[in-house]
């Protein structure tokens, strides 16, 4: 595979495997098998697949939470070994990842405080991102006082405050109601265009994938998950889910999964 010039936020994945030994038989099971991928700096890349296809595992490997079994996984030309400030993670469950004992502002300033950024500077940065995600006026509330959508905004502001090169998002809007999800998708799209972060976005929602992604990688159902296909989305932002091109792509990706169902495990 031809490699892109490794800029600081390019993700290069070659022959990546994640396996575990199953039972006493000594046989090896693969959660992820032979994944090859290059995500360019500044790209919005979607990992799309059914539940349990290992897309979260792949994301956790890029984040450095889960170690690989075999292959190459580099960010900016450096092998991923552990979590780092360059790769921010937005989790699906805000309740389990936000710090409920800290206010919105304190949550957003957490990473800066760990880095011992002076108080004035912290406040300046947190102000900026609290405004960006539309939480102005809620700075002193605790997470339990916020709605599900607002909590995800806190998560987003909290990671953006650390100025990471890469945003890793694991079905961040999966637990939200349809209308809130739609708003959040629009806002994320705008924030991405403003900040030029590399985004890897995991979802099982085809429409969400097409709304957000520049490219969509389709992962086959596990075990032995791999990337079955990569679709380019040549539509301009903001995207209209009612447009013909949108619907056409939606159909093509849907038929991909349907064919997979008929033909066995691998689409």
């Amino acid at each position: 595979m031809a490699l892109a010039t490794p800029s600081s936020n390019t993700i290069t994945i070659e022959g990546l495997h994640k396996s575990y030994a199953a039972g006493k038989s000594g046989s090896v099971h693969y959660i992820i098998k032979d994944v090859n991928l290059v995500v360019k700096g500044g790209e919005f890349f979607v990992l799309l697949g059914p539940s349990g296809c290992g897309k979260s595992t792949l994301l956790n490997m890029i984040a450095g939470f889960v170690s690989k079994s075999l292959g190459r996984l580099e960010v900016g030309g450096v092998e991923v070994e552990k979590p780092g400030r360059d790769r921010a993670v937005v989790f699906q469950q805000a309740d389990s990842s936000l710090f409920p004992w800290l206010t919105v502002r304190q949550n957003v300033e957490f990473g800066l405080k760990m880095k011992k950024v002076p108080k004035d500077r912290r406040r300046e940065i947190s102000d900026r991102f609290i405004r960006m995600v539309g939480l102005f006026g809620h700075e002193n509330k605790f997470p339990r006082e916020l709605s599900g959508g607002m909590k995800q905004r806190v998560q987003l502001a909290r990671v953006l405050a650390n100025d990471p090169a890469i945003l890793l998002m694991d079905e961040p809007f999966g637990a939200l109601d349809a209308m809130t999800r739609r708003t959040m998708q629009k806002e994320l799209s705008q924030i991405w265009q403003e900040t030029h972060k590399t985004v890897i976005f995991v979802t099982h929602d085809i429409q969400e994938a097409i709304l957000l992604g520049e490219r969509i990688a389709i992962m086959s159902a596990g075990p032995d998950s791999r990337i079955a296909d990569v679709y380019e989305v040549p539509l301009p932002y903001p995207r209209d889910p009612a447009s013909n091109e949108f619907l056409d792509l939606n159909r093509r990706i849907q038929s991909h999964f349907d064919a997979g169902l008929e033909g066995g495990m691998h689409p």
Partner: protein
Amino acid sequence: MKTLRNRWITIPLLWAIALAVWQLGAWIYGPDIIPGPVATWGGARELIADGTLLKDIGISFYRVLSGWSLGSLIAIPIGLIIGRVTVIRVLAEPFLNFIRFIPPIAFITLFLVWFGIGEQSKVALIMYATLFIVMMNTLTGVLSLEEDKIRSARSMGASEWQILLHVVIPATAPYMFTGIRLAMGTSYMAIIGAEMMAANEGVGFLIWNSRLYFRTDWIFVGLISLGLMGFATDRIVGWIGRKTLYRYGVVGSVPNRRP
């Protein structure tokens, strides 16, 4: 507002009924078996007048508070370490699950041999009574901490020490607090046992000693004092918890275990 008004009527009413039942029991069984409220009040006035009651309450308080706070101070870091370090947890768990089933009272004689009949053995006993409850609660808190919180802190650049200080401890605070509050109950249980067996002062001694004079009214005074002491400390600890630990999710009352 309505429930509040009701409380001011129902609670005194309940107390009045309780007192009436108590007095009724005293009339039926006689003052030697059940001294009534009036007889008990008389006994209390005697004990207050010669200073023994306040002295005994003070001594018991002192023993409970010193053992309980020392025990908590030791238990919290141990609980945190056992919770965070898997190797230590795997090694320690069998021992913990063995020792924690031995009630503090069972250790009284042994502690007397080890620490003497003075204050040391009593404080050590309260420490023991506190240690396991606070430790196990802290441990439970650490183990129930969501992995996502640690992961997000780590990917925001927090060091292991910062994660302990800024994530693990605050997230575990409500569990520690519950343990500390429950331990107060077992501390009273342990100290009364110890004072009955080997002490010349304290509420436990007062109750035990009263039997020699067949002063059941003094025994009742001792029992009521214990109830009031426990009630007061639990309320104070609960109030401090609510005031200082509100943001960590410590609210309302903690399930109580009777001493």
